């Protein structure tokens, strides 16, 4: 049975729905957190909003309609609303929190080169407008398809794809120029 079907299945299979939701949580939690953290640029707020998003989604899981998009799109829609509400409340405009993990230490030359590249990308991301950052966060943090992004931002798939393409091209150009 598909996840969408499991989520939409009403009681008495509530346990199945809860189980399906837990599967969705395990698969999407890191991505939801990454997306929210990228949007808010505040780890503490991102944790609160992520928990809030999953709580809301769990409470609303019976309202999910498979015909209106994937469970991920639905979940990211809820997370996005929660994040935007938080942004509106706090008016946060902090810098991106993304801190690269250096678990595997590369060679010295590679490390320097990577640091430059990383700084370039980071600067390019910082220069993005909030709505552009929202798009790339949905794509790269959330790992959503263009169709799912379209569903989340309430636009057509082609429109979402076009806007995303423009933002990536903008980033690419910024990185090339800076490089």
């Amino acid at each position: 049975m598909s996840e969408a079907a499991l989520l939409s299945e009403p009681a008495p299979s509530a346990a199945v729905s809860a189980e399906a939701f837990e599967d969705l949580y395990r698969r999407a939690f890191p991505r939801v957190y990454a997306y929210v953290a990228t949007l808010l640029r505040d780890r503490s707020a991102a944790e609160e909003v992520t928990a809030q998003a999953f709580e809301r989604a769990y409470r609303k899981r019976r309202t999910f309609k498979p015909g209106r998009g994937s469970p991920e799109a639905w979940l990211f829609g809820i997370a996005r609303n929660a994040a935007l509400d938080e942004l509106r409340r706090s008016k946060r405009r902090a810098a991106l929190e993304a801190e690269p993990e250096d678990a595997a230490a590369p060679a010295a030359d590679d490390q320097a080169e990577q640091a430059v590249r990383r700084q370039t990308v980071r600067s390019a991301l910082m220069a993005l407008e909030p709505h552009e950052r929202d798009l790339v966060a949905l794509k790269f943090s959330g790992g959503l398809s263009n169709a799912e992004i379209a569903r989340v931002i309430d636009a057509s798939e082609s429109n979402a794809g076009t806007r995303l393409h423009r933002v990536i091209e903008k980033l690419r150009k910024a990185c090339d120029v800076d490089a």
Partner: protein
Amino acid sequence: MSTPDTFTELLREELTPAPDPDFAAEMDDWAAAGFPHRDDRDREAGRRPSTAGWLDRATRALRSPFGTAATGTAVAVAIVALLIAVSPDQATQDQGSSAGGGGGGGGVAESAPQLRGGGSDAGDSVTASPAPAPAGGIAPGQRDRKIERAAQLTLGAPADEFQSVADRIVQTTDRHNGFVLRSQLSTGDSPSGDFQLRIPAGELQAALRDLSALADVRARSDSGQDVTREYLSVTDSLQAARAERRALLRRLATAVDDGRMQRLRDRLDANARELNGLRAQVRDLRERTNYASVSVSLVEGNGDSGGAGGTSKALDDSLGLLLGSFNWLLRALGVLIPVGVVGGAAWAAARTIRRRRREAVLF
């Protein structure tokens, strides 16, 4: 961990901050517990529950597009229910207006369903209209009221049953000690019948009940006119005229002068004319109040001559009820549909505004 060597990989790496391990562990525990409410979780952890309590959640729900639309719809429905509850009963109004309305086309169509009960039920259910005050006063305090009553009845029967129904009208009149003042019966292409009956006032309701059972009642009305004041006035005048006559006769008996005797005779003649006129008025009033005037019109129709209980009547009643319910539903829909459209538009507008307001932080 492989080194990111492409722009996209680097971008993805930059945009995927990992959650704090403690937070991830807390979330995993929460998920394993079946996502209990966070207030409960806070209580278990000894923390104060979130300020977003039930009141806050209710306020948020009311402010949501759905909440706004639901609240608006609920208010509209309450208003509609209130209007329906306080509006005067249309059926009662129709019944009131049909009484005394004669046998006109509209009157027949409106009053027939209310009178279809037929038989004794119909007779008992219809009461005479309150007697209106006659011109010149109502003679308060008079216990023996003089009421002039009249009733109109329109019966529908198949053409081939006209004669039979007409015979039974006469028989019914006789049975109630009444009489037929005038009658007219036509058969053929356009059959019709009219009967002017006089029924003793005390027998009126029973007679009407029996007449109503003879055929399909198309229309029926009763009316009453209080003529007590007029009756008292005429009888008083009659007594005065009689007293005057007695006085004139006494004076005539003692008169010796021819001229005086002639004048008294002339006055007695005038008094006699007055007395005759007053006696005629009293007789007329007594006849009008002792006997009710009943007008029965017989028209062609497919009614059940057997009175109440016919299948056709039952079907008519059912249809009437159905139409009544349908009319009520139409009235309700006439209000609810516009309210629903406005509510839906408001919901859509509120949803769009809320989304734009929420996304405004991105622009």
